[in-house]
């Protein structure tokens, strides 16, 4: 119960309910669940190309031939990637940074996987859509990416756009509703 209570969103009462449920559940189910949980970290890892979670070497989005490899959407987290996928409005591929620039916490460009992104953008990418949240950290990251892409010969011609802020300032993409996020994606503008 103590372990269950450490899961996000699970308080003491919920942990107790889950524990009683598991005690009465069929043996096969409990074994399968335990197996899945213990395999999770071994089997699931970041996609070598974009950083999305996958059990293969490259994720389902990177290997899907129907998706437009010429447009890459840069997001802070896999949760944000999933939020954009739920809108069904983005036909391209992704790049997950895993963190954002944080001027107040001293997280600088050296702490983000930006060289890997620049490496990837060189061949055949027409547009980079920066979909970081409308926060100071998200803005800082977008400005830096635009600067870095324009400053490199290989990527200078790539169009760099930023999603429009239908998403409230200070908000999380993960919690934005699908319509708002979809419209923010449609209304993206070029970063000067």
């Amino acid at each position, binding site marked *: 119960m103590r372990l269950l209570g450490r899961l996000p969103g699970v308080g003491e009462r919920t942990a107790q309910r889950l524990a009683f449920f598991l005690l009465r559940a069929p043996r096969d189910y409990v074994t399968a669940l335990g197996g899945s949980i213990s395999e999770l970290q071994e089997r699931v890892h970041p996609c070598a190309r974009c950083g999305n979670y996958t059990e293969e070497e490259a994720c389902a989005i990177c290997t899907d031939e129907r998706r437009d490899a010429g447009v890459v959407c840069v997001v802070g987290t896999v949760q944000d990637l999933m939020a954009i996928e739920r809108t069904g409005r983005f036909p391209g591929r992704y790049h997950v940074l895993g963190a954002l620039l944080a001027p107040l916490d001293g997280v600088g460009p050296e702490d983000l996987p930006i060289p890997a992104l620049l490496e990837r953008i060189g061949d055949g990418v027409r547009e980079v859509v920066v979909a970081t949240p409308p926060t100071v950290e998200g803005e800082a990251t977008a400005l830096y990416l635009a600067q870095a892409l324009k400053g490199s010969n290989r990527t200078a011609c790539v169009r760099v756009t930023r999603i429009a802020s239908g998403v409230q300032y200070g*908000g999380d993409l993960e919690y934005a509703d699908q319509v708002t996020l979809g419209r923010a994606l449609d209304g993206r503008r070029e970063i000067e």
Partner: protein
Amino acid sequence: MGRETLDTRAFLLKSTPYGESDRILSLFTEARGKLSAIALGARRSRKRFGGSLEPFALLQARLALRPSTDLARLELAEVLEPNLGVSKQLVSMGQAGAALELCRELLAPDQPEPRLFRALESYLRALDVRGPSLSRMVGLELCALEVSGLHPRLGECGVCGKPVPPRRAARFDPARGGVVCRSDGGGPITLSGRALEGLRALAAGRDAELAEGDAKNAADALRALTEWHLGRQLKGAAFLRQISD
């Protein structure tokens, strides 16, 4: 249950996610100086605090102070001046971040520092309207060092007290709190004559605009002094260096 409500203007110095839905904030309040506060529901509900928990904005905050704990509770936060222009340039963000970090590190909790508060207010407003300036950053850093009793000695040698000749370069030793003459061993940093003069003018409360190179020289000396006192590196300085590379 002696609960006290405090209405004050404030700047956000740091915001850390706490649990699933809350944030722990470090605030620089005008009335009580640096305070810690919890913003319940700030991570999920945007109705409550809106965009007011983003850095750089001047806020009007209502805090519930509780005698049993040092952690106040943020009840309301309204943006008085958003200073959105700060987030339009990376260098502005870096300089603002460095200033807020300095306040966070140097201020003692629950001790009002109205002079530094006003200096920070006009510093962020200038960043918003006029863009980045290393010279103004140096001015704010001097003010922060001064209110925390760490102002550097700039007029005379920190060891023998001999006056430093004007308009001449001098050696600066963070460990000895300021300029040190050659016969007392000098120091690891050389301050140019103009940088030293600019620092002295700013320290005396006069308006001084340092040229970029001199401001950089002065900023490096102040950073070294602060880091020596804190015993560790400032993150804001590292961020500024990385974005200008």
